[in-house]
């Protein structure tokens, strides 16, 4: 697979975007948005991670095999979270019969 050498300015542009997103994360944290604070913080982090992965780590220009393995890592983390939280989020649903407490 021929090597793809990116132009320097893409690196600088991505870096600029990352710094802007950093500032945004901090500023948004001080605005009261309730539940949205958490979603905003994680979303911005995800965007930063995607930028780093695609451009700094060259995944944008890599083979499909590599994409699959990159995706697999995050997907598996998703499995860990999803099924663990299927327990934690549903614990309160079932009232225990009396006498078991």
């Amino acid at each position, binding site marked *: *697979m021929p090597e793809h050498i990116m132009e320097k300015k893409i*690196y600088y542009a991505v870096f600029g975007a990352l710094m802007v997103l950093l500032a945004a*994360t901090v500023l948004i944290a001080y605005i009261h948005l309730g539940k949205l604070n958490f979603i905003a913080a994680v979303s911005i*982090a995800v965007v930063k991670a995607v930028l780093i992965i695609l451009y*700094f780590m060259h995944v944008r220009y890599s083979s499909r095999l*590599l994409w699959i*393995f990159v995706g*697999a*890592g995050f997907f*598996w983390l998703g499995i860990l979270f999803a099924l663990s939280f299927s327990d934690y989020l549903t614990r309160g649903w079932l009232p225990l019969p009396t006498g078991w407490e």
Partner: protein
Amino acid sequence: MPDHSTALAHQFDDLEQQHESVSLGMWIFLATEIMFFGGMFLGYSVYRGIYPAAYGEASRHLDVVLGAVNTGVLLSSSLTMALAVQAAQLGGRRTLVLFLIATIALGSVFLGIKGLEYYHKYEEQLIPGSNFHFDGPNAGHAQLFFSFYFVMTGMHALHMIVGIGVMVVLILLTLKGRFSAGYHFPVEISGLYWHFVDIVWVFLFPLLYLVDRS
């Protein structure tokens, strides 16, 4: 000029196969790191879900300014690392060494600030253990927060130290003339490792420092 025939390992047929194999190998290793840190993230998330108030309270004891500065420092080191890899791709030895040194310097700044933060926590008696002291009814849950804070940032710092060690080795190898435009795979995969460690911090910062700042 470096001898490419010695760069090719005997089990591979050509440098392209070696390059692809080495890249795939590093990404698989990074997938294991995702799962490794992921376990800690799960623990953190579970307790945050159960004890949101305590987490908010505890998080406010962390220094947002230092954390944000550190994030900026680490992102900058990712930039210098990416530029170092590019220098390697182009065969520029001097540029490569300079950017590696810059990366090490920025990484060291990060570790220095982290050490300062840890020292502050020590002074405030917020290091979990027998000396832990937290005012209010949520002390136990706050201790859980700080356990995860120290374990996660500590594990992250450990990875950074290893990364800096790798950079030093890369500088030595570059000075010995081992790399060229045709063979620079170790620089590339070390870059992947460094960026990954950066990504972990990108998640750690908001999750630890910005829990309930409003």
